């Protein structure tokens, strides 16, 4: 028994190392067939910017909302606000911010007004 445990533990460590080597190096995970809601923040922001740029030309708010729906179940306005936040943090141009903001303003106008809580 005193000889069993060290050998077992060493084998365990080797097994774990082999598993991680296989999973991370030899056969790493490949991301395929993903949906737009898994996109990195940089691409999500660019996606929202593209929707905003298209909206600026088409002025079709319904279609803009439809396009934003691909990014996940959150309300469209939240997605645009998140994109604005990212754009501000990463020093995007004022033109891009204005483009995003225009869509946010129009989406905000659609949203039902927040009702005051009465006690």
């Amino acid at each position, binding site marked *: 028994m005193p000889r069993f445990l060290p050998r077992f533990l060493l084998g365990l460590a*080797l097994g774990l190392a*082999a598993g991680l080597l296989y999973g991370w190096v030899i056969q790493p995970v490949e991301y395929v067939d993903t949906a*737009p809601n898994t996109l990195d923040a940089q691409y999500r922001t660019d996606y929202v910017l*593209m929707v905003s740029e298209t909206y600026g030309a088409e002025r079709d708010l319904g279609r803009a909302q439809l396009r934003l729906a691909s990014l996940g179940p959150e309300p469209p306005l939240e997605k645009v606000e998140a994109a604005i936040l990212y754009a501000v943090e990463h020093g995007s141009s004022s033109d891009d911010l204005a483009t995003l903001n225009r869509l946010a303003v129009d989406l905000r106008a659609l949203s039902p007004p927040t009702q005051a809580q009465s006690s």
Partner: protein
Amino acid sequence: MRSSDWFPWILGVGVGLLAGVFYAWRVNPVSYTQTDPTSLRADFRMDYLALIASAHAGTGDLGRAQARLAVFGAEAIGETLGALAQQRLASGYPEAEARALAGLAAALGERPSGLPLSTTGTPGATPVRPITSTPRPVRTPQATSTRALTPTPGAPFQLTRQQLLCEAEAVPPRLQVQVLDASGRGVPAMEIRIIWDQGSDRFFTGLKPELGAGYADFTLQPGFAYTVELPGSSALVTGLELETCDAGQGGTFDGSWLLVFSQPAR
């Protein structure tokens, strides 16, 4: 080493592997986040490309569109966009989207000047299916796009050339259209309306960028007389019918028609 000496090793490795897999699959499974557009499922990837094209149509910023497309790394992205435009138009997607894709495809795949018009296309180029290959029954009129790509400002287009082409016996006879601006450059995303006695259809320039930004074609059927119109201009061609060409040794085949619409130089 006795066989019983191997037992702890084998047991340890086995348990370790199982533990690793359990950890990777159950305790801390892979979450698909921070992906890039190349990993998107095919239909989402096409939507992404269409969105790039729509944004380009809205802003006219080709450099930004190219930067966005660069992540896909495809060499023949212009052809992909052109094919996608046709596919989307045929599938009933908004016309504006197809026009945006065609416009971006044309902007990316500019044809060198002097490339001969040919129904066989550029050697080695992937054949692209025309928007409509056969005349179809009359459809309910569709609302026209609220926003169109603006052609080069200038005088209205005029028909400057109408020619029967007897050079391509192998392909079905086509109406080939070239729309050129005043400087002789092809104009993409121009709508061409074609009417025959049993119906009408529309097709657009720029969907085959390998044949030129201002190129479009339509398969002609025997027994019909076609009228071709370039909306927004006085250019109108009527009574266009298939005509036979001499194939030699007594044989004949149906020729294609070439129509060139140009803006007069100022």
